[in-house]
């Protein structure tokens, strides 16, 4: 399973490296979202630094949709999905591989956006351990849920519009938990907010979706 996951993950990353979609389209889009938030809040630095955590995660969420759509698009083009099915790879391995590839891209994206919020919104990073752990947990959750729903919507004529409708409410707990964790780490949370407690919500979500995806992917890959 893990060997298959490594194969699929490496394949997806190789395609991304060659096509440069992640670096020339998704990352600039994410930074653009941050800049637009800056315009919307009228360059009010006090307010921006207060809500920076939420804006960061909304930007990650919106950009992750593009990454997921891209990850599904490479499978639906030229009958690649049938080829993947006929390849004899373990469906759980395919799921984990695609999740890992999306995770790698999201980590880079979060790094770019992290620098973006520090520079544009003027925040100070106080608790690096909490920030890092929340990024890992949220990325696993977003990537797993995104891969699972991406597969559910793949092959449908209306997948571009359906995917956000399916994914956004489902990953709302990640947005909520990760934002609260970041606010606790940046010192902008209301008194008594325990960042590590919120982190456990995000971690729990990630575990549930990795497990659900690993179990359900065989049904989705073999169905049509």
């Amino acid at each position, binding site marked *: 399973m893990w060997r298959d996951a490594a194969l699929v993950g490496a394949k997806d990353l190789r395609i991304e490296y060659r096509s440069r979609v992640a670096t020339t389209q998704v990352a600039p889009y994410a930074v653009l979202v941050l800049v637009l938030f800056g315009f919307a809040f009228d360059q009010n630095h006090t307010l921006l630094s207060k809500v920076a955590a939420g804006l960061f995660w909304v930007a990650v969420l919106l950009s992750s949709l593009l990454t997921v759509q891209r990850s599904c698009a490479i499978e639906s083009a030229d009958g690649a999905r049938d080829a993947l099915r006929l390849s004899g790879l373990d469906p759980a391995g395919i799921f984990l591989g695609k999740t890992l590839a999306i995770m790698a891209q999201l980590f880079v994206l979060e790094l770019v956006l992290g620098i973006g919020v520090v520079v544009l919104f003027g925040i100070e990073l106080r608790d690096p351990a909490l920030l890092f752990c929340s990024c890992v947990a949220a990325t696993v959750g977003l990537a797993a849920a995104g891969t699972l729903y991406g597969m*559910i919507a793949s092959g449908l004529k*209306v997948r571009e519009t359906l995917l956000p*409708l*399916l994914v*956004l*409410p*489902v990953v*709302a707990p990640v947005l909520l938990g990760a934002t609260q964790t970041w606010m606790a780490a940046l010192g902008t949370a209301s008194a008594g907010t325990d960042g590590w407690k919120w982190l456990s919500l995000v971690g729990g979500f990630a575990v549930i979706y990795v497990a659900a995806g690993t179990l*359900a992917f065989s049904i989705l890959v073999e169905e*049509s």
Partner: protein
Amino acid sequence: MNSNFPEGGLKIRPENRAVVASSKSWRGSPTGDRVTLTLGVCALATAALTTWLGLFVTPPDQVQGQLVRLIYVHPAVATMCYAGFVLCALASLAYLWPRTRSRRWDRLAVAAAEVGVVFCVLTLVTGSIWGRPTWGVWWTWDPRLTLTALLCAVFIGYLALRRTGGDPDALAKRSAVVAVICVVLVPIDHEATTWWASLHQTSTLFRANPLIHGEQLYTMLLSFVAFGLGFAWLVMHRYRLEVLEDRFGEEGYGLAIKERRAEGGRRVGTQPVSHQGEIAT
């Protein structure tokens, strides 16, 4: 054409009417029979009794006054919303299990989800109406409220997925996976008031020592029966509508060809010719 199909009542798309009218098993309502009729009458009767008890017999609350009468609507509606989603997930599990796989479970899943979403919207609306005079706001970002809104959103997504068309078996499998994953929110939503500090009150009824007694308790229990019967009535009708949709998918094309030929026959002044045997497509 379709002269035995009554106007009003359940709305059937014009293109589906041929299938409905050709059915000999349903008289009058295309999705009704004696069971649903009895169920519907019982639901109306218990709802009327609940209304009378709730509005005129039971006393107002010491703290909330007349507002407490919403307790005969809101909890029952919310429970039916949960029931719809849980039923949808159970039917989806039965569909996913190879030994029990059948179109019946898929039809039940879509029927239960759709009715569940209706009750979920009603839960949010009645809760909002209750929240405005008691909390002073129509909406607040409380764990229970937020989770209920999320539950509504994920099942609206489920219904959107169901409308995408394509291969029915593939769609049924995808939808079943979504339903089984999304139903995880139901127990979290139910326990939200005990797990987190919530503005929403904890359970009134489902506890060792219920918080209400006497006629208020009986009226509240009756409201559960009334909405439960209404829920079952809606699910049964919606299930049968799904059966009709399936039949339309299987037979509609052949019937459409038959009708067109009959029209052509009339136009040139000749009698319609029987085209039996050409229906199988």
